[in-house]
């Protein structure tokens, strides 16, 4: 079964899956199992949440907290980049 998720979470779980495939962090390589485990961990840390999408399916998205954090990181990076340019 495909687990539906937004771009932010997709990037995170893809990285985790890549790491799992290389055998660096775990033994399993089943994609959905890796995705499910990562999403469960992100839910516990308050970074991911389930919701019912417009098609009536359960999907996952980054919480406002994680979105704000990533936005801050991006703004910091842009500020640093601009400072280096000068």
């Amino acid at each position, binding site marked *: *079964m495909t687990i539906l998720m937004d771009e932010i979470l997709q990037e995170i779980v893809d990285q985790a899956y890549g790491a799992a495939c290389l055998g660096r962090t775990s033994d399993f390589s089943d994609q959905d199992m890796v995705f499910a485990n990562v999403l469960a961990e992100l839910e516990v840390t308050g970074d991911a*949440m389930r919701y019912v999408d417009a098609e*009536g399916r359960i999907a996952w998205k980054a919480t406002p907290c994680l979105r704000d954090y990533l936005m801050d990181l991006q703004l910091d990076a842009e500020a640093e980049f601009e400072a280096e340019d000068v």
Partner: protein
Amino acid sequence: MLDRPTPAPVRCSMEALEATLRRIEGEWEHYQSTRDRDAVYQYLSAVFELVAVWEHEGKAVDFARVILWLRHRSVQNKLEPFAAVIFCTADRQKVDYRTRSKWSRVLRYAAEFKDLDEPLVAYIKRKGGINKCAARFARRLGRGRRTEVTTHRPLDRQLRQRTFL
């Protein structure tokens, strides 16, 4: 016979439920800390999204019971998931039984009649606001309702239509 939608493959742990409650408590705090009149909608949307997922999994009352247990709270009346989430995440000094009941009626009305792709805020405003929606609930779904509703579980009707028709 229509099957229920396939349940989410990721199991919801107690820790995840706790984190979810904290997130919604954060929305409550935000609502309390701002002068924005629309901030209450953000809080209600968070409550609505959570119960919608529980309803989708067919376990709304079970999850409501668990969060009451997690927050060491109990209810005297019939357990209603929206009211339970509000009871567990909002300040009881500021949200009394009547307000909780009103918000719960608004959310139940939206769960029954709102299209899945329409944001809750837009829907409630389109229907005249919180008080109007609560009154609409009384007319359509409450004790003095005019029409019979065919489903007993909010969102079921829409989910069946969306998923299988």
